[in-house]
């Protein structure tokens, strides 16, 4: 089993199975371009630095990749109707501890940076699921969004959306 070491921004080392990394477009491209698959070269032992991903986030990403080992990897742009995606139970549980937290957002950013399309889609969907049944002010409070509206603007928006409620 070939292991490749990923190094997080806080310099934690994570030896990861080569097979798992195929889910990440960014790392896969790097491995191919740098010839890291070639065990005869010095490059094979070279750790891959990921300066944009913190250790705790990377750990979560690896955990997700391990669970989804062998899943088909999406290619190209996502043309599905994202509003109709259903988050599987395991993934729902996976995202839940990080729900309403910056960790979930960091995980989404990491998925984007590492180009793990399935993780990105599910993560975005999990975030959007937290909006369900909430009012604007509730979403604002839960996700730390500052209220930029004046009371007049807020009233106008409320009236505007009245018919849909």
């Amino acid at each position, binding site marked *: 089993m070939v292991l490749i070491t990923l190094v997080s921004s806080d310099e934690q080392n994570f030896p990861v199975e080569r097979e798992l990394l195929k889910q990440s477009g960014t790392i896969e491209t790097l491995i191919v371009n740098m010839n890291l698959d070639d065990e005869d070269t010095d490059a094979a032992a070279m750790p891959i630095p990921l300066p944009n991903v913190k250790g705790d986030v990377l750990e979560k990403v690896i955990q997700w990749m391990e669970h989804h080992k062998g899943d088909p990897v999406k290619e190209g742009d996502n043309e599905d109707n*994202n*509003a109709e*995606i259903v988050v599987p139970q395991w993934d729902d549980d996976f995202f839940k501890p990080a729900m*309403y*937290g*910056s960790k979930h*957002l*960091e995980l*989404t*950013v990491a998925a*984007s940076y590492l180009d793990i399309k399935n993780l*990105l*889609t599910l993560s*975005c*969907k999990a*975030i*959007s*699921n937290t*909006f*369900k*049944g*909430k*009012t*604007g*002010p509730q*979403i*604002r*409070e*839960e*996700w*730390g*969004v*500052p*209220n*930029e*509206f004046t009371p007049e603007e*807020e009233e106008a*928006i*409320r009236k*505007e*959306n009245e*018919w*849909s*409620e």
Partner: protein
Amino acid sequence: MPITLDIEGEFVFGGYSQAYSRTPVTFTNSDGDAPLIITFTSTKFTADNRKGGVNEGYIVESRAAIGTGTFEMRIHYGHAGYELWCNGYLALTYPYRQPNKWIKKAEVPSAIVLAHYRTFQIPTRPGFLDFATQPLLLGEFIHINGVPINGGSFNISLLDAANNPSYTLEWRKSERKIVQYLNRKDWSIYETESGSVPLSIGREFDIVLANTPLAIEAFINGELIAILRLNAIQTEKEYRYVQVSGEVKIFEQRRGPKKIEGMLLRVEDLSALSGLTIQNAFVIDDQIIGVSIDLDEPWAMYSSDMETFAVKELPVVFEDHLQMTTSLLDLPIELAEAVFQCADYISVIALRQVSTVTKQLAEANVLKHSETPFIDRLNLCEEELRSMMPQSELSSFFDRLSPLLKGVNVNTLQFFSVSCEMFAIMAKVLDGKTVPKLEFALDFSEELLVPLENFIRHLRTTDLRVNGYSDVLCMMIKTNVRHKRFYFSARCSHAHPLYQSREKHVIGVCKDPNSMYTKLLEVRHFKMQRRKHTSIASYLDVLETHVARPERAFHYARLSGEVTIFDQRRGPKKIEGEPKWKNTSGAKK
């Protein structure tokens, strides 16, 4: 704008001097003369004086290189003249050149960014403070400013009512350490040593002793040194006198809290004044709010009164969601869009009410959802409209309007001739909606402008195009909801052989859609022309400007730059003769 400060006694100020400012800080006496003028240069500063409006030219330069940047300067009346202490060291002594040496005002130029200043009286009994009747309370502090001289060792003691030292801070220079002891009334003696010694001979120091419940905290030049984690048994009754003895020269001694004029922006100053280790501070109304980490405790938040610097701990309620360090809006825009695309219709509507950014992101997704509320609304309108339009026309109209509401990407009513009634229909159907793009033809007549104006007033759209076919102009109106501004642009749809214009000219911007009617009328009269067949003019950009009254706007023409003029004249006018590129030699061109 220079700042003028009143001075009573000695003066200390700190801030930031900008490079090569050479703008002097002028100190004037009660006669209006300036016995001291300090000028900062890039590496040093100089002192001069002015009498009767004329600089004497008796200039003394500072010894050490001061340079630009952050500084703190103390002006002390010495025996030989003004002693100017800069960043802790005696940098310059300027002799008293005028009989009236007492400074009353300081004028600080704007090139010096003033961070803090203080004026104070020279102590009458240097090294001794008496507050026997009002002992040092918790939260209060003692501030001693001075400079170690000769051998340097000295001590500061807080004495009890019987004049016995209860607490002592001693600098033992030969042993390179600072020792603190506490003599408690239960006869126990506690002692601690500090390895860090931020003191040296000839260097000015600021020592603050703060009376806190758990210890006398000692700050030297804003830095908290090792502390005895113990205080007197009766902390608010114990300390009644201060005595400084040893080889030290005292400039300033005071008991706090006390009003300090000017701004205090440095957390070190706040730390020294409050007796806390302030990590961060900000000002809310008349309170300074500081965040501190003290005595290995979790961080706490304090308020400090701007006048008295009395410190009060603020209760902080920790809740889970306060741990949110990243907001939803911190997501990169493409990820935020991806999240919003995943949201269902009701969530999208709720997201419109969260913030201006989420509103814009949500609006892009509103039309992707074919939800019943749109259709219901449409049906409601339909009843009313049936009486207004022939069935065939109405049917055709709704055929085009319905997919628009359901979110078909190409939202077009182009080539559909819009009447006044249809404006009314659209205004009702689309009232309050955000339609990304709506395009239709308009037979340009003035009677349509008022309904158009009303329609646009009700419509929220990010891109509205009205193609009005007239002899001269095609109207293109673009509203930009994001900036609450309405952009107008115009182009000639049927290019006259001798008239050409650029395809898009922004000729009007207004914040209020109500003023659009006026703008539209102005647009009708707008004409731009460009000469053909001149070597430089053929691709020269035509003036792009906002012209309200074009007929009266231009009186002269001027062409400048590296160009040779062959011909210049006012047009439009027919160009005589045949084009020059006509093939006369028979060769293919």
